[in-house]
């Protein structure tokens, strides 16, 4: 068996994956987005990462799988890197970390409301404006430029904005 000088653990790998960003929302890492649901590392540094899709039709998923492999293969003494997608853990917007929510806000995207189990029609209606924080806003459309975003308008600062929609 090959001798490895550096042994990685799950938490090391998780930290490296914080450098992998969502191509559709570049300020947020896939770790903060909450889609990395499993990391396993063997004593030969073979790494297996499991991702869960945000939306079933998310076109960025394949790209993110490739980015994970690309990042981890750059590590010294790394073994085989494999990635799979699984629905075993159902992704919800509650899985976005605090850092992730801050990153969304800085990007001008209203963070999703939390713990939305069963959505009522008005769940998106008073989304706080990411520019002026006013709740005097209205939903323009539950569909935006990507599957995970909705379109809103702020009556207070008179600006259109996008939100990350709760699922």
């Amino acid at each position, binding site marked *: 068996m090959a001798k490895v000088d550096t042994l990685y653990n799950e938490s090391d790998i998780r930290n490296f994956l914080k450098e992998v960003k969502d191509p559709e929302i570049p300020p947020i890492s896939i770790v903060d987005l909450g889609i990395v649901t499993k990391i396993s590392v063997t004593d030969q540094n073979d790494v297996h990462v499991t991702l869960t899709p945000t939306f079933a*039709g998310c076109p960025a998923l394949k790209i993110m799988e490739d980015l994970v492999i690309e990042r981890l293969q750059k590590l010294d003494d790394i073994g085989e890197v494999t990635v799979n997608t699984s629905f075993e853990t159902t992704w919800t917007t509650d899985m976005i970390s605090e850092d992730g929510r801050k990153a969304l806000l800085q990007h001008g995207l209203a963070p999703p409301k939390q713990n939305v189990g069963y959505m009522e029609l008005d769940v998106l209606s008073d989304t706080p404006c990411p520019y002026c924080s006013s709740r005097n806003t209205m939903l323009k*459309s539950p569909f935006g430029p990507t599957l995970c975003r909705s379109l809103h308008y702020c009556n207070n600062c008179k600006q259109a904005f996008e939100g990350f929609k709760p699922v």
Partner: protein
Amino acid sequence: MDFFNDKHVEAAKDLIYKMADDQLIIGHRNSEWTGLGPILEEDIAFSSMAQDKLGQSEHLYNLLHELGEADADTVAFTRNENQFHCCHLLELPIGEYDFSLIRHFLFDMAEAVRFEMLVESSYENLALLAKKFKGEIKYHTMHANTWLQQLATGNEESKARMQNALNEAWPLALGIFEPGDSEDVLKEASIFEGEAVLEAKWLEEVTALLNKAGLTIPAGVTAEYGGRKGKHTAHLQPLLDEMTEVYSIDPTADW
């Protein structure tokens, strides 16, 4: 699939094929509004829903692949018309916006109930997909119902258009629930409670919303069956020809 015997696998395949084909075909039809929507938000809405449906169909085809069928692209792009199990409602052209909206309402309400039921399925991988799709479809039904209520209570023309579209779509919508050959097996294995249960739950929900919108459900209508058994309208083949155009030229093309 340790709890499955062959009979169960065949029954599950029947169920998943019709679900996947429904998603693929309505996904394609929805995408025909891209660039043509009456307002920008609606253009984006139908395009987004198309993307959701296509994504969902791919995951369902992947599940069929796990059960021994060919891979997703092969299944989606190489079958003949009579090997498709989509219902007639979805293969019809997009028509006027009122028809597309009513179809969207009637079909997506049925999908929402189907996913809700399948979350309890004994077939775990299907239940996991249903759980995921359930979170996505709520935005589709929200969109459909918002426009239904708005247009059916708008002016005389919009109300008449919605009623006419409903009259046209209703027998086709009942065709969603055409029973399969394996209803008993699915029920016995707790994979799915069946089309009849789904239809009853759907009818209760859409009736309440259509009543609220002031529309009348046509009476004495016969359901239009055939799609689930591979018998289709004249509209499916041209759709398939267009959808598979690139694949037919070059099956390895990446786009």
